[in-house]
């Protein structure tokens, strides 16, 4: 408590580095087998996707159904760059380029559409993602429906760790800053936010652009780990998958998204033997959460020891909170 730097080191950096080293050792010792590694990779990618969508939908209140579109841009950029420049520099460059193009597209789409009301944004973003997918399917340089393969694999545990933790921390830093609070104010009450000087369009576009950037980075992580990318992988259902993680964890809770990414990996594994009913259960899960616990696992709170014994009381009248 006395020295914030020491405290930060103890509570943040030490556990992080330990996690990294332990998993690294387990991988090398063969305790974490190949399947576990793929699962960890999927979880990491889902965390980055969910956290970045949460910034847009959970923190800023802008309902996006097009996150897979940003992911697609990042994936294709990374794949195209690394297939041409097969080196670590190409990989980093591709990852950054993917994020930047995704952010640019997010900016260009967000600028006009984010003035619209909530559910229109949902449809506009859905339309954007579909257009991206159709274009990728029809461009020559993206190799059409066949997609790109083989994409050189640069992602390993170290990269997953760095990129996932880095993305989560940057987004966390954002939401706990002036700009982040502005975004949250927009979610809470757009008219009130405007009345106290928040440039709501700017706030929304900023959050949307940053979210798009990390969506693109997640796409790059995906492309550089799974060898093959095809336009159809980035369809509407992918956007829904990401949304489910965010909703399950809680709109406006970063730790919720992280936990939900793990939880869904477990659920997905458990449902693996029942392909016929998997999607049915998934759909039911969505409906049941919305009816009985619309705030998700953690609501808009972060997981914290302080939260547990109800030190912070709050009225449970979420139903009365304003829509849109």
């Amino acid at each position, binding site marked *: 408590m006395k020295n914030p730097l020491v405290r930060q080191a103890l509570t943040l950096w030490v556990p992080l580095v330990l996690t990294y080293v332990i998993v690294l050792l387990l991988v090398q010792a063969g305790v974490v087998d190949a399947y576990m590694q793929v699962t960890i990779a999927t979880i990491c990618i889902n965390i980055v996707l969910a956290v970045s969508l949460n910034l847009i939908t959970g923190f800023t209140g802008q309902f996006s159904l097009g996150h897979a579109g940003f992911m697609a841009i990042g994936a294709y950029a990374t794949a195209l760059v690394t297939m041409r420049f097969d080196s670590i520099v190409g990989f980093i460059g591709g990852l950054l380029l993917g994020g930047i193009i995704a952010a640019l597209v997010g900016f260009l789409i967000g600028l006009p559409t984010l*003035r619209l009301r909530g559910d229109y944004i949902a449809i506009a973003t859905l339309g954007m993602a579909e*257009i991206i997918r*159709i274009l990728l399917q029809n461009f020559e340089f993206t190799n059409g429906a066949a997609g790109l393969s083989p994409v050189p694999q640069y992602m390993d545990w170290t990269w997953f760790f760095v990129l996932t933790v880095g993305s989560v921390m940057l987004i966390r830093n954002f939401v706990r800053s002036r700009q982040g609070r502005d975004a949250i104010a927009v979610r809470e009450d757009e008219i009130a936010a405007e009345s106290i000087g928040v440039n709501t369009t700017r706030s929304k576009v900023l959050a949307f652009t940053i979210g798009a950037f990390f969506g693109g980075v997640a796409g790059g992580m995906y492309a550089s780990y799974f060898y093959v990318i095809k336009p159809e992988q980035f369809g509407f259902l992918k956007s829904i998958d990401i949304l489910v993680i965010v909703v399950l964890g809680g709109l406006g809770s970063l730790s919720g998204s992280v936990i939900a990414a793990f939880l869904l990996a477990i659920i997905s594994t458990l449902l693996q033997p029942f392909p016929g009913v998997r999607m049915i259960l998934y759909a039911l899960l969505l409906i049941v959460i919305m009816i009985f616990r619309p705030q998700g696992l953690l609501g808009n709170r972060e997981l914290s020891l302080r939260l547990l014994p109800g030190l912070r009381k709050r009225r449970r009248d979420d139903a009365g909170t304003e829509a849109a």
Partner: protein
Amino acid sequence: MEQLAQQLVNGLALGSIYALIALGYTMVYGIIQLINFAHGDVYMVGAYVGYFCMVHLNLGFVESLVIAMAVCTVLGVVIERVAYKPLRKSTRIAVLITAIGVSLLLEYTMMFFVGADTRTYGVLPPFMEQSFNVGGVLITMKQIIIIGVSVLLMVVLQYIVRRTKVGKAMRAVSQDADAARLMGISVDNTISFTFALGSALAGAAGVLVGVYYNAINPLMGVLPGLKAFIAAVFGGIGLIPGALLGGYFIGAAETLVSGYWSSLYTDAVVFGILILVLIFKPTGLLGSNVREKV
């Protein structure tokens, strides 16, 4: 010229389907401001009910159409009561996510029972396979049926909304639910009725498509559902004439893009139209600006 006329006939038939689906979207949106994502899947269920009636029960086209509409009516009301009503006071995002959930539930439950593969309506009565050559333009009986049934249903809908008590209640609730409640209108029943009407139309559209294309599958509702929604937005969501205008416009646009440019880009163009409309006239062609109450 002949080709253009032919394409417009094609577009008219397609547009009728979109218009029928769009009506359900627009009525539901008008009354509870919900994009009912499951609406396209109600249309799919309608197509399967029609299939079951015609292929397995050997019923005629008209009987099958009526039964499919009836089943979808019930389905629409059940969806509303079970999934949406408990969320009447929730955030819009919550309801929208629920709607997506319902949509997936219908699709995959259907897939679980009938499989993912395409089903066909089989051999139709010979009179439905006729076609007419009008000055070089080929019009099939099925196109005539689609356009005819759609127009008939739209007229009936207009009558219900304009002239009946429950139709007036619908309009009242969509104007101001609280005021309607004070005037003794049962808001819940009116909302259910709106779902019933919209779903019946979607069910009819499902059977018509089944007959027209002779092929149905559990995911057939996704894309037409989205396009019908776009049609509703294009015309001005919440407005019944808007849905008609939008439906026929999208149908024609799609046909002309395939006919004179490339089928590759039909879907992209439709989504592009959506984004342009949202940017330049978010209230749609026939809509007027209303701002949130402060």
